[in-house]
């Protein structure tokens, strides 16, 4: 953010208590120690603490580092704290809010500002919508100073702060565009006791589809912050895997169908262990790896394979299932529903292989049988 002219507190990242102590010493004065995790709500969860001395900063760092932080945005397991940010503490007079995102209705970037910073913007939008000011940005001309003034006055800034805020917002928009963000949010943007603006906390989300042109952002990626099963899936070439709470492993082609399969499992009284869109690449390896995922997930009691071949060929998927049975020890019942491109060949491969699987005739039958299988009612 400082590269884009946005004022941020002086500070550095530390991964040991000794480093944290050294940074605090360098800053000379009160510091704030902040857990560096992929989640918001850190303050309320105890992940942000003030220290008066370098020793205290070191102590706070040693209490945070190596533990897991549970906030309302993480699951009950929380996320690991492997780094803390130590930065100068500021006398905060007011807390403001600024963000940029793409508005799907206008299909334009939207900058939002509010004088009600330091809390969730959704809460502000519900409780006091009149405190949120918005401007749409024309990508051909970019963010304009008059828009900055409109938002600055909306936040009740005065005097020199108006020009300062406009410059900061221009920088934030440039950061948003240059780095292909999907969200660039400063919350809170502090007005300090001496009247300066300072970005105290920020959240930047990046567009996955644009990562190919941002090597620097890719390098920031920290696997430790993510769900281990999701990291494992990615390493096995399964990019569209999301861990869920249940015990039925799901393998589906297509995101919409995969969501609908999960919905249908719940409708039938069961609960999916994951969302998995196998995609359309026609290789048996990825199917085998999906089964490795189910084996690696000790919660899985049954598996549902639901494929409607379009770009994906059903016979290749069937071959992959047979390979999986040959290469790995599969102890749970597997329900298979196949339809679409080359379905007859797919069914022939499965039935001739001699593997023990439960055949489903359609979408509903598949979900229903998978729920029964997970309860041990059919094998």
């Amino acid at each position, binding site marked *: 953010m400082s590269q884009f002219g946005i004022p941020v507190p002086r500070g550095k990242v530390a991964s040991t208590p000794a480093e944290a102590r050294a940074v605090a010493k360098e800053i000379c004065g009160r510091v704030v120690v902040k857990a560096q995790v992929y989640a918001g709500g850190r303050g309320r969860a105890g992940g942000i603490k003030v220290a008066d001395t370098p020793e205290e900063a070191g102590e706070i760092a040693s209490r945070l580092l190596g533990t897991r932080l549970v906030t309302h945005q993480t699951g009950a397991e929380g996320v690991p704290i492997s780094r803390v940010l130590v930065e100068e503490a500021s006398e905060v007079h007011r807390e403001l809010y600024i963000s940029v995102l793409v508005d*799907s209705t206008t299909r334009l970037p939207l900058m939002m500002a509010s004088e009600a910073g330091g809390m969730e913007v959704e809460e502000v939008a519900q409780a006091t919508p009149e405190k949120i000011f918005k401007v749409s940005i024309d990508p051909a001309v970019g963010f304009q100073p008059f828009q900055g003034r409109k938002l600055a006055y909306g936040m009740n800034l005065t005097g020199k702060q108006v020009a300062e805020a406009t410059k900061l917002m221009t920088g934030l928009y440039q950061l948003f565009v240059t780095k292909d963000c999907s969200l660039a949010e400063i919350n809170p943007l502090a007005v300090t006791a001496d009247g300066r603006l300072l970005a105290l906390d920020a959240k930047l989300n990046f567009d996955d589809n644009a990562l190919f042109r941002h090597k620097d952002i890719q390098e920031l990626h920290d696997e430790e912050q993510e769900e281990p099963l999701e990291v494992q899936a990615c390493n096995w070439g399964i990019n569209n895997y999301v861990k869920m709470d249940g015990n039925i492993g799901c393998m589906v082609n297509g995101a919409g169908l995969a969501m609908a399969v999960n919905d249908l499992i719940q409708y039938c009284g069961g609960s999916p262990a994951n969302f998995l869109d196998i995609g359309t690449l026609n290789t048996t390896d990825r199917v085998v790896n999906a089964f490795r995922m189910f084996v690696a997930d000790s919660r899985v009691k049954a598996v549902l394979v639901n494929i409607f071949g379009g770009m994906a060929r059903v016979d290749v998927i069937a071959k992959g299932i047979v390979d999986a049975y040959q290469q790995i020890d599969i102890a749970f019942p597997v329900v298979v529903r196949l339809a679409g491109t080359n379905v007859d060949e797919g069914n022939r491969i499965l039935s001739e292989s001699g593997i023990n699987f439960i055949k489903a005739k359609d979408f509903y039958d598949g979900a229903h049988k998978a729920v029964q299988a997970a309860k041990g009612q059919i094998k």
Partner: protein
Amino acid sequence: MSILVDKGTRLLVQGITGGEGSFHTQRCIEYGTKVVAGVTPGKGGNQILGVPVYNSVERAVAETEANASMVFVPPAFAADAIMEAIDVGVPLIVCITEGIPVMDMVKVNSYLKGKSTRLIGPNCPGVISPGKCKVGIMVGEIHLPGNVGVVSRSGTLTYDVVAQLTSLGIGQSTCVGIGGDALPGSTFVDVLKLFNADEDTEAVVLVGEIGGTFEQEAAEFIRDEMTKPVVAFVAGSTAPPGKRMGHAGAIITGTAGKASEKIKALSAAGAVIASNPAKVGLTTKRVLDGVST
């Protein structure tokens, strides 16, 4: 009997010489689509699948009078390809490519303003008017000509829904995949307007999913202007917030993005909700029987 594509569609394919481009062009030709040109910069003058290839959309349109384009260009170059076709004034562009950066689509949408081109997609299965013309990657054989319009953010889920309709003898006027991205060229409302005006579409099946507010916007249109029954299913009731469920646009970031909110809005607007995705066909049949009796 249909919207967007029919027997009069003269298709050009951008990215025709790539693996997916040529594979699906072949399938479209087999279905009966008139594919008149392909465009791959640097490969002009060649032929592929009996179709002449040009270096530019401008040249292809001038030579062949193509009136629709199907885009298979890789994500890093797709926005440029779409804008090239917009610039030439191609009336319909169907972009299949998945993975185009959002900021690129912001530019494309901005470039589209005030022009007459209609963009479907990206990240979509395409458009098919059964028995007439297929512009996309969907399985042609599962479709049946008829009077129900289908509009969806999904690919394979749409195949399942279409197969359900066909197995019950319910044919389709046109099936439109608007795609799974956060910024589609056309939204549910855009396509509902076309179905509403199409005299041979009797009812519409809408397949939505979590993320964004397209379903809520559709609900407003259904409530205020739609004169035909709409059957709706919204995928992702079980999806956790903050997680991207495969599609770039399928992520719950606020209350409005939840399936339950979308279902509530659509239901309040008078759409018939199919709560079981395996019974969208049956729900549609009930609605159609009610209408005709």
